[in-house]
């Protein structure tokens, strides 16, 4: 077996901030409980004040957009809204949080950031209590505007979201996807699109839980290989070759990769060590059928996957050692529908998948506990769901605007936003939280 090492694009600059920034909490605020009461289903109004200084406009825009994309917060005074002018006037007339202006605008909190020589100082004002609720400093790497700098600003947004809602945001994440024949990376807010692979056609990217290693498959006339890439060193090596080797996924602990291997008698799931040359072991016994697209449960004990063993594709679940295979998605015998591409939610409670309805794929979820099924999309063809680390957002491929593009869905509110604008984007994989110490 030839084990070659090839180059992929490096993101060393991105991951240079690998350690989660230890925010210097304002000493006067220590032990103070967040003054806001966040109720799921309601979105507190938040004003993000203009930020002075070089790159201040970018910082304000990124934070406001991140908080908006969280779908847990209502941003008041977004450019183009009727409140924008009032916010500007209120801001210009003084930033006294006790001012009745903020209450009039319906704001529960005000985010105030100032650029510092090394980064940004950011403060959350509680409007109802009329005082500062939280404050912290974050270092921002140079150069300003770079991918690493943007990631650090996204981390500020995620911390502010935690202050407000009690749950960390997911702005500091990225999405791997396929366009044309290459794997690309895009920030969660749609910025900084970068090609990762070149050469042979690449498919099915997947993240390691460390946010540094990725796996994918790549094919040409010689065969279809599973590759493992390192975004820091930019090196990729062949993990599996010979026959068909597709749809890799990392176990949650990063110690295993499960992928689908096919030769001349169907395709079965295999378990391999991503960083050694030890032979892979077979998990599923498909007896000539196709068993592909594995996704681990967050505890690493079970694997959801697509199997054609019943005569058409359905989603099954199997123990990680290959025992106890059972059908997950319900169907009636004679049902010629098609259900595939499972992705297990980060909280472990449900599995997203695609189901063909009236000839088109739609995104569905099924809960593990009571097997209740929910249809999440209906417009165009929608497929290949991948959960964000918050277990609330899904990225998926949709033809609703014509060519295939990636969209992000908030499962709770149903809000959808378009992530890519490149035409032909598909097979998305949402990263874990990035830039945090493991």
């Amino acid at each position, binding site marked *: 077996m030839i084990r070659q090492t090839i180059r992929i694009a490096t993101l060393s600059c991105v991951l240079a901030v690998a350690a989660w920034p230890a925010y210097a909490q304002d000493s006067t605020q220590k032990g103070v409980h967040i003054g806001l009461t966040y109720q799921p289903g309601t979105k507190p109004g938040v004003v993000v004040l203009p930020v002075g200084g070089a790159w201040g406009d970018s910082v304000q825009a990124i934070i406001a957009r991140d908080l908006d994309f969280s779908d847990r917060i209502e941003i008041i005074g977004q450019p183009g809204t009727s409140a924008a002018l009032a916010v500007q006037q209120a801001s210009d007339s003084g930033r006294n949080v006790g001012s009745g202006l903020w209450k009039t605008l319906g704001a529960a909190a005000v985010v105030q950031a100032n650029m510092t020589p090394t980064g940004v100082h950011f403060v959350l004002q509680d409007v109802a209590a009329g005082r500062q609720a939280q404050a912290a400093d974050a270092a921002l790497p140079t150069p300003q505007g770079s991918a690493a700098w943007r990631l650090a600003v996204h981390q500020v947004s995620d911390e502010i979201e935690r202050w407000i809602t009690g749950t960390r945001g997911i702005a500091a994440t990225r999405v791997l996807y396929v366009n044309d024949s290459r794997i690309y990376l895009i920030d969660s807010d749609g910025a900084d699109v970068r090609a990762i692979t070149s050469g042979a*056609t690449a*498919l*099915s990217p997947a993240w390691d839980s460390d946010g540094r290693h990725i796996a994918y*498959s790549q*094919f040409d*006339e010689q*065969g*279809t290989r599973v590759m493992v890439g390192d975004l820091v060193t930019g090196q990729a090596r062949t993990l599996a070759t010979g*026959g*068909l080797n*597709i*749809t890799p996924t990392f176990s949650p602990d990063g110690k295993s990769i499960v992928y*689908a291997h*096919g*030769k*001349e*008698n*169907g*395709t079965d799931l295999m378990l391999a060590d991503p960083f050694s040359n030890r032979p892979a072991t077979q998990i599923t016994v498909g007896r*000539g059928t*196709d*068993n*592909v*697209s594995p996704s681990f449960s967050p505890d690493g004990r079970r694997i959801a996957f*697509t199997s*054609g063993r019943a005569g*058409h*594709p359905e989603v099954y679940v199997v123990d990680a050692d290959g025992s106890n295979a059972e059908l997950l998605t319900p169907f009636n015998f004679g049902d010629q529908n*098609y259900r*595939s*591409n499972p992705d297990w939610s980060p909280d472990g409670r449900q599995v997203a998948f*695609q189901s063909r309805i009236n*000839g088109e*794929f739609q995104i569905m979820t099924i809960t593990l506990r009571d097997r209740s099924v929910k249809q999440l999309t209906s417009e165009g063809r929608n*497929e*290949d769901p991948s959960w964000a680390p918050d277990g609330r957002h899904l990225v998926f491929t949709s033809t609703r605007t014509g060519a295939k593009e990636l969209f992000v869905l908030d499962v709770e509110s149903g809000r959808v936003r378009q992530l890519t604008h490149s035409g032909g984007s*598909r*097979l998305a994989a949402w990263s874990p939280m990035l830039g945090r110490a493991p």
Partner: protein
Amino acid sequence: MNRKTRVAPALLVAIAASAAAACHKPAPPPAPVQAVNQDSIDAANRAREDSMRAEQARRDSIARAEADAARMKAEREAAINEMKATLAQPVYFAFDSDALSDSSQATLDKKLAIMNGNPSLRIRVEGNTDARGSDEYNMALGQRRAASAKRYLTQHGIDDSRIDIISYGEERPVASGNDEASYAQNRRDNFVITAGADQLQPVATQ
């Protein structure tokens, strides 16, 4: 040498005769030279024509042989090209199926005859799908389709090592439309000669 000093023998005889006649009367002006020995002229002409005919016959024979060779070469090339086309002829499948239809088996039978008659021939079977299913599942389905054709050929006596298989899933369509006609064209096995194409020998196909 002066060209005028060479005189044909028949002409010399004519000159001698007219010189004798000129002895008893004043010499008349020389009569126009007539061909007097028709037999030798005819003989010379016949000889020349014979040699030209022989040369023509020789040339015709060569041309016929060349034409025959060219025709045989063309026929052989046509036969080999037809064999290549037969080898390359795709096999088509129903939606989400790797089953070989009767017509697919007939297509494979023609390939069998060629492969049996050409032991150095090696091929690659490339399985493909339409774009309606899952991109990932289709990679496996294409593999199963390629394996299906290979299994048929090996079960009919072709050595396993002569056939490679690969799947392109839905990644390499030949028709881009979103209609059943396009889908049907894309649900196929393609066949590519990987070795032995330059040593192909024509075989009788049924």
